[in-house]
């Protein structure tokens, strides 16, 4: 559904920000992008809805070159919804409902249609009706995040791209939000792309992982393929999951053999039987 082919972009400190990136995202994927600050993750997601144009290479959405002649880039922004890290950079209206209606109104919906879309999106993310007429600035951090996601969902996108959605949230809010994303993907059939710093979150929720390092796509595969390459990840200053390290230690001690657990759930399933 989204395809990057040899995409390169920009220069900073004599290095390319992105260097010849090639990958494919399929319909219904839950993609996790990991990498250091400055590895090119943010640049990558800003290309998915055409905010940034690559210097060379092609980006295709449903087979069409998004920077090709006559391609409607404005409409692409409604089909590939990008949620940025800080909801404060997005919320501006006097009430929650009006803020969520902003995108739909820009699409050309009527007031009533936009209102319906906004209500639907807000109930999907779990914002109760009594908060619709509150100022978005009175909400808690987790609620603001949800409203900012609703603001994108109300445009009914086919892909939802999120830059570090759980950063700055507390443990409870974190888990809620990840569960919500899973629900949006499974029930509303929206493809999810998420930039994350947490290996655990990516291992738990994603089915496809991209690892960026210094502008290059270093690893691209299933969570199992990626997190079993701990040495490679460590070389980039990243790490594998805690569950993987536990199992590796136990394998060294000859207790488990060729175990493939990368999440705590899997590790528990395996270890419980041994005690």
């Amino acid at each position, binding site marked *: 559904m989204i395809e990057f082919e040899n995409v390169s972009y920009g220069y900073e400190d004599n290095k390319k920000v992105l260097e010849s990136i090639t990958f494919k995202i399929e319909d219904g994927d839950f993609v996790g992008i990991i990498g*250091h*600050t400055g590895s090119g993750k943010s640049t990558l997601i800003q290309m998915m809805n055409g905010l940034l144009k690559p210097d060379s290479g092609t980006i295709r959405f449903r087979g069409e070159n998004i920077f090709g002649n006559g391609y409607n880039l404005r409409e692409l922004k409604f089909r590939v919804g990008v949620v940025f890290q800080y909801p404060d950079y997005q919320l501006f209206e006097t009430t929650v409902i009006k803020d969520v209606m902003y995108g739909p109104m820009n699409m050309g919906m009527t007031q009533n249609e936009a209102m319906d879309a906004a209500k639907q999106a807000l109930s999907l993310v779990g914002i109760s009706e009594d908060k619709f007429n509150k100022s978005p600035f009175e909400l*808690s*951090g987790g609620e603001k995040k949800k409203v900012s996601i609703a603001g994108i969902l109300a445009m009914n996108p086919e892909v939802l791209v999120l830059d570090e959605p759980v*950063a*700055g949230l*507390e*443990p*409870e809010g974190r888990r809620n939000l990840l569960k919500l994303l899973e629900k949006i993907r499974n029930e509303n059939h929206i493809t999810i792309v998420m930039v994350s*710093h*947490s290996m*655990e979150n990516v291992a738990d929720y994603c089915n496809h992982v991209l690892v960026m390092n210094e502008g290059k796509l270093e690893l691209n595969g299933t969570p199992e393929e990626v997190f079993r390459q701990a040495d490679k990840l460590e070389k980039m*200053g990243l790490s594998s999951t*805690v*569950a993987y*390290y*536990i199992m*590796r*230690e*136990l394998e*060294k*001690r000859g*207790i488990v053999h060729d175990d493939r657990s990368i999440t*705590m759930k899997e*590790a*528990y399933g395996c*270890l*419980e039987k*041994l*005690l």
Partner: protein
Amino acid sequence: MPFISIKNLVHQFHVRDMNGEITGEYNAIDDISMEIEEGQFIAILGRNGSGKSTLARHFNNLLFADKGSIWINDILVNHENEDIIWNNRKKIGMVFQNPDNQIIGTTVEEDTAFGPENIGIESENIITLVNEALEAVKMKHKSKMSPNHLSGGQKQKVAIAGILALKPKCIVLDEATSMLDPHSRKELMKFVLELNKKEKITIIMITHNMEEVVNADKLFIMNKGKLLTHGSVNEVFNEVETIKEAGLEIPEITELAIKLHHVNQNFRTGIFTPEEFANEFERVYNEKRNKE
């Protein structure tokens, strides 16, 4: 005598309606008492709105008690006595959450000098203090740089240097790691721990991340303005229900150990690293084999 001693502290916030009229009040800090010894590494944990940041501001005399009292070095904090306040702010420095919003100077060294300049130290002495502080945080080579060119983690180190230049006894980190990526977060924690061990500076860490505080001497857990529990890391981490009530989460590995403890009572809890875990697992595993 304890370094900081808090007795029955209450801090009230007013609730206002849309027009700014006071419609009620609630206790952001509700009758808290605690003692902090000099040289300790203390962590205060809680969810947003638990009152932990409000409490932190009392240490630095940025806020004052509505009821109850605070002693710092056995001197009672009195909001009418400016000398005590300024002295306490020199003694107890504070690192805030947002790295950008606490750097005042347009260069790294200029920012580090801000504190000493405020209290009227002479120029030559400021230069010495600033150089020492920047060396301590390993940022001397960036002293002439604009803070805008630094990473989040480096900015927090500059903020710490600005406090070190005032020769403090204690540093309060008010969610200072929450906007950093995991790598810078670990590095900053390592550095703070070093300050605590080598320079004997008291560290008070305000956070909602339990993984960061496994090295602390003492933990305090807050909820709704009250102290839920306190104790050593091992003691507190085993109070699973209290932690849940406070909206916190113990590290996944510690949780796994607790789960396995329920499967086999011999499996010890309070485990924080994969090596520790594997060693314990090996021990219990072999024990079981031998019995069979």
